[in-house]
């Protein structure tokens, strides 16, 4: 039973199509209603539908998508900061090691996030 619900949730994860696409973008983050159904009213406006127990997981998966995107942005910004630190270190050994450590840490964090998301998609593919 657990597997069945997980498969349902992960099949949502695989079929990624925004029900209400809009041109508004905030740092390229996906919308929280990404995996919900939608309905169109008389004026042609699209609104996502939410039913309490079933759609909670869909929203949670969308939030995970947003977190993945945020992790990528954070890693890029952190590496840029470390690179600037490296450039402006000007031979100071302390600053060089600090910058190098920052780069290594951001790469480790990115690897953790990638492994977590890869585990999700791998389990989803192998189950269904």
């Amino acid at each position, binding site marked *: 039973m657990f597997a069945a*619900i*997980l498969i349902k*949730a992960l099949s949502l994860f695989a079929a990624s199509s925004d029900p209400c696409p809009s041109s508004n973008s905030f740092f390229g983050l996906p919308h929280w209603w990404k995996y919900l159904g939608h309905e169109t009213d008389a004026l042609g406006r699209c609104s996502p539908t939410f039913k309490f127990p079933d759609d*909670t*997981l869909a929203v949670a998966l969308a939030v995970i998508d947003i977190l993945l995107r945020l992790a990528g942005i954070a890693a890029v910004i952190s590496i840029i900061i470390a690179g600037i630190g490296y450039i402006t270190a000007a031979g100071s050994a302390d600053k060089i090691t600090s910058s190098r450590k920052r780069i290594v840490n951001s790469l*480790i*964090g990115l690897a953790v996030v990638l492994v977590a998301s890869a585990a999700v998609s791998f389990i989803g593919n192998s189950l269904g």
Partner: protein
Amino acid sequence: MKTLKLQIKRAALLLLLAGTLLLPATAFAADSCQTSGSPSVKDQKTATSAELQKCLTDNPITKKLNLIVNFLSAAVGVVVIGVIIVGGIQYTLAGDNPTATGAAKQRIVNGLIALATFIFTYAFLQWLIPGGL
């Protein structure tokens, strides 16, 4: 005279015992799945396993429990992945600060511990509950 009285008493007691044992079995024998009271011993013997399974799955308490367990089981995976991703972001933003990386590591490890605990609990419930979840 005394022995006769004792014999009557004993016979009455026996009759009463037999009556209490037989009555529920004969009264509810037609319905293997009662809505009130527990099924008698005879019912459980005569009813097929499929009927008993249907009794169990049609029970409103069982239905609600299954709904809750399924929902929480699915939520556990999502929450654990979320915690690990947040830990990864924390690690990324830690810079060269060892205490910050320690906090991120602790968060990731806690997420993994939660996952392991859930898996053990689920296996334990599968073992404990007759028929499984």
